[in-house]
């Protein structure tokens, strides 16, 4: 029973590492150059600080996920993992909400401020950003689960284990 739990946790953390890495890479490689009315127009992720923040946070979390894979399961450092999971969950939620806010303006525009949507001109860029955001949502859900699970295993708050 403990063996399957360990293997399952390891597998889930490996999946989380892969998804954070892919979200970061997909967002960073989204770039498109179009010509609108004889003007060359290039859309990159680095135009908006929100998308740059998304890339940076997912890169940091993927490095953390990679290092966590090598932690032996009986070490005392799992208490530190509780605090680190909390911090990284918060970072992931903030990055996904900021990137979603900017992407919403890019897709639908904001008529009250006179901001036109840009997705019609750079469709491939928009689709790639959308894909990265979907993967970002999966990351957030996975990390919330990890956070609750590490609190459950190390701190035993529901007093379910026989001491």
């Amino acid at each position, binding site marked *: 029973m403990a063996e399957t739990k360990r293997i399952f946790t390891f597998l889930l953390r490996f999946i989380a590492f892969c998804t954070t890495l892919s979200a970061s890479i997909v967002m960073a490689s989204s770039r498109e150059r179009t010509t609108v009315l004889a003007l060359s127009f*290039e*859309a*990159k992720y680095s*135009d*908006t*600080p*929100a998308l740059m*923040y998304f890339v940076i946070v997912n890169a940091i979390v993927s490095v953390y996920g990679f290092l966590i894979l090598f932690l032996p399961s009986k070490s005392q450092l799992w208490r530190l993992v*509780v605090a680190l999971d*909390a911090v990284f*969950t*918060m970072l992931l*939620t*903030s*990055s*996904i*909400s*900021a990137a*979603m*806010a*900017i992407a*919403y*303006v*890019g897709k639908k525009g*904001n008529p*009250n*401020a*006179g*901001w*036109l949507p*840009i997705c019609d001109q750079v469709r491939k860029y928009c689709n790639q950003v959308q894909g990265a955001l979907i993967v970002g949502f999966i990351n957030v859900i996975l990390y*919330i689960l990890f*956070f*609750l699970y590490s*609190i459950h295993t190390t*701190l035993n*708050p*529901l*007093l379910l284990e026989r001491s």
Partner: protein
Amino acid sequence: MGLQSGEKLAMFKWSYPRNRWSLVVLRLLAFLAAAAATLVMVLNKQTKTFVVATIGTTPLKLALNAKFHHTPAFVFFVIANGLVSIHNLVMIMADLLRSKFDYKGFRFPMVAILDMLNLALLSGGANAAVFMAELGKNGNSHARWDKICDKFEAYCDRGAGALVASFIALAFMLLISFISILKLVSPSSHISNNNN
């Protein structure tokens, strides 16, 4: 001779403020900050008349207004701060009426779990609003989005004030979550506080 192992462990134990009122004061401050952020953002409105064209000699005037619900990020900000302030209010009342509750089974860690969930919610709301406000203040030349803060200065200033209050609430919520989790780790001192 020397210290025994139990005493050595006790030396390294985290000690959180064991005063009964410290957590209530922190929750009160977080509630005030989050409620201030909500109220300032909800009442944030500015109307300005612009001259858009001139027909002959009469100028055509158009009245434009800036409200918080024009941007979905600010709507999320208002909802998140409202929920956090309600949560803190409920937790303050639960703390004051502590003698009527018994912390058995699932009710004991619910406080800490709810604190952490509200922390994540507040961080999401505050960050989305900050990035949208940065877009409004600086514009984005690549996407041809003009900045709006030079036209609606009072709206921008009040929004900035609401954002600052929300980040102060975020710092307090972080402290409160930390103390709530520490209370889970050492429940014995909590039970001894129960007799106050």
